[in-house]
């Protein structure tokens, strides 16, 4: 029995990309169209991973934490073997399965069953095993009744189920997961999570990128915080999450800002409403007093007490939505 491990040394990844040249704000609509057609994209380079070092040994469950574009998926892709590092080394022992893009790599015109064959053969599974896989995959994804329908007739949730069922059918030593779970109906999500837990428990190494802190906390033992293609923290999962929270206190600050804005709006609305009501009440009062003055021209009536508009305004249906 071999020990599964991942060793990454001085890993860096620089990729070319094409950028449309920056344009001055176009003078006219036509100029915009013309510019879009004629501007030649320029080749630039971006460093997606920058001198990344770590090693994961058997039994570890590693969370990749970071904002969008921090390099989580890129790192997973590199570990999956799709991206070749531009510098440094990456050594992997053990069979690996990447669950990075579920629902892709299908033939739309082929039936559900044929697509199981297709995906499974792309995963290098020998055909004898594939035949045995078809039934359980259909069962798990609950697509048995429509196994002979063309794939394009399926809903996106059903496709997701199929992809998930195929990808998780076989247990591997190393599992590389990107956050994607969550589509599909609640019942399936629950079953998928069970299956995932099962696979995670059965595999020797798990690397998972996700934004769901609760999921990471329950699954992982170790956390790596990525920022701009670098690992800025590597340690215990709860420490890593705390570090991430410290790095990006966006949550708290955003909450406070939202609370403030909501309050300001509430006050504004309240003021407007109060003014409106006051105006109405005054108008009504004036009308009444004129009317009663006409009616009882002879006998002088007592003036009505002055209305107090404030309490009416306070209950004036301002939606005091909870500021979350």
């Amino acid at each position, binding site marked *: 029995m071999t020990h599964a491990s991942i060793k990454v040394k001085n890993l860096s990844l620089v990729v*070319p990309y094409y950028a449309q040249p920056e344009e001055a704000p176009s003078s006219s609509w036509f100029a915009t169209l013309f510019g879009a057609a004629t501007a030649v994209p320029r080749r630039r380079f971006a460093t997606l991973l920058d001198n990344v070092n770590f090693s994961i040994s058997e039994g570890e469950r590693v969370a990749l934490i970071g904002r969008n574009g921090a390099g989580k998926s890129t790192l997973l892709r590199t570990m*999956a073997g*799709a991206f070749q590092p531009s510098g440094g080394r990456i050594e992997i022992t053990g069979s690996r399965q990447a669950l990075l893009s579920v629902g892709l*790599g299908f033939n739309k015109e082929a039936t559900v069953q044929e697509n199981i064959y297709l995906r499974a053969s792309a995963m*290098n599974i020998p055909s004898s095993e594939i035949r045995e896989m078809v039934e359980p995959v259909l069962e798990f994804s609950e697509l048995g009744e429509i196994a002979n329908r063309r794939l394009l007739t399926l809903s996106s949730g059903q496709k997701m189920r199929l992809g998930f069922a195929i990808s998780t059918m076989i247990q591997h030593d190393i599992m590389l997961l990107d956050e994607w779970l969550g589509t599909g109906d609640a019942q399936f999500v629950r079953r998928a999570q069970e299956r995932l837990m099962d696979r995670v428990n059965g595999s020797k190494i798990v690397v998972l990128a996700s934004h769901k802190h609760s999921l990471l906390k329950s699954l992982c033992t170790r956390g790596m915080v990525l920022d701009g293609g670098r690992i800025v923290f590597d340690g215990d999962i709860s420490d890593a999450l705390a570090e991430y929270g410290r790095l990006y206190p966006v949550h708290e600050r955003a909450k406070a800002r939202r609370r403030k804005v909501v309050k300001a709006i509430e006050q504004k609305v309240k003021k407007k409403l109060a003014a409106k009501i006051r105006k109405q009440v005054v108008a009504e009062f004036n009308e009444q007093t004129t009317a009663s003055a006409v009616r009882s021209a002879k006998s002088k009536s007592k003036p009505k007490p002055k209305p107090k508009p404030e309490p009416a305004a306070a209950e004036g249906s301002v939606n005091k939505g909870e500021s979350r």
Partner: protein
Amino acid sequence: MSGLFNQLRQSLQKPEFWAYSSWLDIVTRYRRTRLGLLWLLAPVMVFTFVTGPLYAKLFGRDIASYMVHLGMGYAIWRMLSMVISDAINSLRSNKPFIMDGNVRLTDYALKSIAKAFFYFAFSMIGMIGVLIWSSAVPTGAILTLLLTVPVIVLNLFWIAYCVALLGARSPDFGQVLQTLLMMGMLFTPIIWEGNRFATDSTAGIIVRLNPAYHLLEIVRAPLYGHVPESGSIAAVATMTAVGWAVAAFLCRRYSRYVPIWI
């Protein structure tokens, strides 16, 4: 990443993926048609049986010999152009598989070839009939196909591999090839006969600059019981050797960048 030959060996040992996915591509395309796979016969047959007699008359050629020339020429050309136009986008269209870590690019080249070869094989069902019927084809000459077609396929492989790689790198390359393919159909002696022009005439030299001419020639000439021009044999041999060398070089140098390009 391992070298080209290593990759190719692995691909051939594990044909499940590329064989199955190319088969699916073909089958699903005709699934909803009434005639199904019979449509595969149509293009070459129409070309041979409609255009053949017509042009034989127009050019004043012997119909038995001309139909073989036209049918075989078109069948081979079609395979060649299908491989090229499929390979241009093959890496991009197989992106999900590549991104999941299946970076053995020979799989995708073989997929392009498998598809085109299947079409070719199907069109040959009709063509074999023509070959047997034609009085211009000596008995036994048909068997030379067993030797010449594999040579073509051998060339198709490096073409598919290089085109796929370059197509993934630069979209311009794809556009250039598409344009060339369109022109190539007219420049290549499929309807007309290239060997009517002497080797040393200007027209003859121009005709022989076209690599497709030589590929067609080594298939067609033996069918008439001739040995192909020595120039053609040399050209094809050189093409095969140089092509594979280029493919091996591109594989070693650039195949690792493919996931990034796409």
